[in-house]
């Protein structure tokens, strides 16, 4: 929404299988883009000596592998967030784990990202099909609406072979297309040596395309919420001089004083009498703004309700894509807590439409259970009418989570596909 010339923000996540080089890549980006402080660089030289280490001795993966267990096991367990800026753009990077066991942490990271950088390990994948985790990650990222960038990594280990790159690029493109996506860019890199990440070192004479940093600085930062219909979940109600102020963040669209609004789920209608904030009243509020709305009529609006543009779709049952994130498998018949916007209701999975077979690319198989990392389509019934916005139309409110009421674990992430 930043229409002016202020540097835009890009949130991206790295994905790919274990050891494809995700953490190394982020360390490299930060190091080459001067996003690391001196004391942080010193800590990469195995944390022992107190002098500046030579670049070759740096273990760049340590930039983000911030947990003891991660450093011990040499793998990433949970997402690390890093912040840096170039003169052209600021970035929030999420380093997500590759290991299948921690897929839910990749889903966590991807849910707030604009772009995914899917790494493919040229050394270990050449002449072979793409790894299952590569497929799973690309599938999840696409479901979550991310723009896909592919980085074919470890090109140093295959002697910068053009044919290896082209073979893997074509496999990655094929996978994306099977999902209905088109990769924004496919870039050969060496994260370890730093070739074609931020700088070119001439090893890739046959490659005329952009560096990965060029891609990241120019890929459109997409604003999911700007164009949708008004959706403002009511988080709190405050009272001032007899007026009721409905407090929440505009998640989609915009609202002006005088606009007609519908309260969901009651479907009562009113108009916006005022838009208030601590810093003074506004004439208009747009997606991303936290405000307090005053309505012209005295309606019974409570926390968990939604203020929306007329025509808002509501339904007691929906069909949704679902990622199961809990080690405890789905218990058929159980009522889960469904959180969407500011509302929490009870919901039950009525039927599994299919579970996606990640290995077999896009074919789905019938199933009667859901367990950790399953990607499924389900039919879901709720105790209260749900906001039935399709995730692809209004991602800010078309997504929900299921919480297990026994353990309080976040059990699944859902994306509404249709009212049912």
């Amino acid at each position, binding site marked *: *929404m*930043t*229409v*002016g010339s*202020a540097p*835009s923000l890009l949130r991206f996540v790295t994905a790919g299988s274990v050891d494809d080089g995700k953490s190394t890549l982020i360390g490299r980006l930060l190091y080459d883009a001067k996003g690391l402080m001196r*004391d942080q660089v010193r*800590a990469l030289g195995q*944390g022992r000596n107190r002098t500046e280490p030579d670049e070759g001795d740096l273990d760049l993966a340590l930039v983000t592998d*911030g*947990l*003891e267990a991660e450093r011990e096991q040499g793998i990433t*367990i*949970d*997402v*690390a*967030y*890093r*912040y840096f800026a170039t003169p052209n753009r*600021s970035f*929030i990077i999420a380093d997500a784990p590759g290991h299948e066991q921690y897929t*839910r942490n990749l889903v*966590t990271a991807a*849910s*707030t990202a604009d772009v995914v950088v899917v790494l493919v390990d040229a050394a270990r994948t050449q002449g072979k099909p793409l790894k299952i985790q590569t497929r799973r990650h690309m599938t999840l990222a*696409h479901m979550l609406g991310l723009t896909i960038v592919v980085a074919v990594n470890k090109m140093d280990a295959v002697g910068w072979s053009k044919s290896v790159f082209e073979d893997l690029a074509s496999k990655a493109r094929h996978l994306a297309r099977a999902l*209905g*996506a088109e990769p924004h860019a496919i870039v050969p890199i060496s994260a370890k040596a730093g070739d074609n990440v931020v700088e070119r070192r001439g090893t890739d004479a046959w490659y005329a395309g952009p560096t990965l940093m060029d891609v990241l600085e120019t890929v*459109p930062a*997409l*604003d999911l919420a700007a*164009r949708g219909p008004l959706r403002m979940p009511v*988080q*709190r109600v*405050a009272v*001032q001089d007899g007026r009721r102020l409905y*407090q*929440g*963040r505009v998640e989609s669209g915009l609202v002006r004083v005088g606009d007609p609004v519908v309260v969901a789920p009651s479907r009562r209608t009113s108009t916006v009498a005022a838009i208030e*904030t*601590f810093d003074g009243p*506004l004439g*208009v509020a*747009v997606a*991303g*703004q*936290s405000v307090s709305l005053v309505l012209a009529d005295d309606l019974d609006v409570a926390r968990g309700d939604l203020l929306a543009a007329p025509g808002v779709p509501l339904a007691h049952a929906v069909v949704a894509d679902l990622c199961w*994130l809990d080690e405890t498998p789905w218990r058929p018949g159980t009522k889960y807590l469904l*959180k969407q916007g*500011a509302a929490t209701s009870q919901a039950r999975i009525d039927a599994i439409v*299919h579970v996606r077979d990640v290995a077999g690319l*896009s074919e789905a198989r019938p199933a009667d259970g859901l367990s950790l990392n399953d990607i499924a389509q389900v039919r879901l019934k709720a105790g209260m009418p749900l906001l039935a916005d399709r995730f*692809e139309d209004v991602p*800010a409110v078309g*997504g*929900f*989570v299921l919480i297990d009421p026994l353990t309080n*674990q*976040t059990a699944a*992430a859902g994306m509404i596909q249709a009212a049912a």
Partner: protein
Amino acid sequence: MTTDVITRPARTPVGGGPPPGQARRPALDALDRLESEAIHILRDVAGHAARPALLYSGGKDSAVLLHIARKAFWPAPVPFPLLHVDTGHNFPDVIAYRDAQAAAIGADLLVARVEDSIARGTVRLARATDSRNAAQAVTLLEAIEEHGFDALFGGARRDEEKSRAKERIVSHRDSFGQWNPKAQRPELWNLYNARVQPGEHVRVFPLSNWTERDVWSYIAREAIPLPAIYFAHPRAVVRRGGLLVPVTDLTPPLPGETVETLSVRFRTVGDITCTCPVASTATDLAAIIDETDLADVSERGATRLDDQASEAAMERRKREGYF
């Protein structure tokens, strides 16, 4: 195949101009968005939790957090108490500021004293002058139990330190106050899960996505008052381990060290025994922001005596309940 094609969200590229009929939309800048995200988190968790509190030390991050909490709940007052875990080793300036700010907004300020935990015997220190920073976790957990808090807002940022960079915005603590970094709850979009069993609580970090520069820029934009030690002032210090250690009753110079009076400011404020200032001539916020842009050592690296000992020091303390 058709059922397997996942359709993508319709998206509007930034810079593509406003959609027809929606001209002159106000543009949100990066600080607007960070502020709004923090407000959303505060409102969400406060609506869910039975007994929340806001950790308030009088430091710059908690000053920003309190300022945003006022905005979030306005016209209502901040609907929860402030909690300070007081090591007793404070900069007097900061304590005066803490009390004045809480009084100015009519907030309920609870002070949990490490001193009291020492008297109870739940905190034991080898020497009376030892750093009480790590002991804060014990006192904090005692306060949580005493008051039955189920959600604690804190001003920690992910850019501060590597184990913080790993933490969820809403971060679960078990009934012993422990963080289990290997089994964090998934956190999707902006749907936070603050549900706890009795005796458990969540730590909530509305400023997770802020950088040190964002904090300074926001303080300048909003004209948030700060304790004077954040601005350059002459102070007696010694040089130790690459840091400037302030000379106080609790931190006397070691044999062989030379006391110098330098122009310094604090980038972060905590227990007096482990917080170090940096050399600086920045007497106003604009100058501090300029220095922040040029800094080549991280906030913690430049200022904390205790974290330097071990890479994993902070993670261990956090697992045990530290904030």
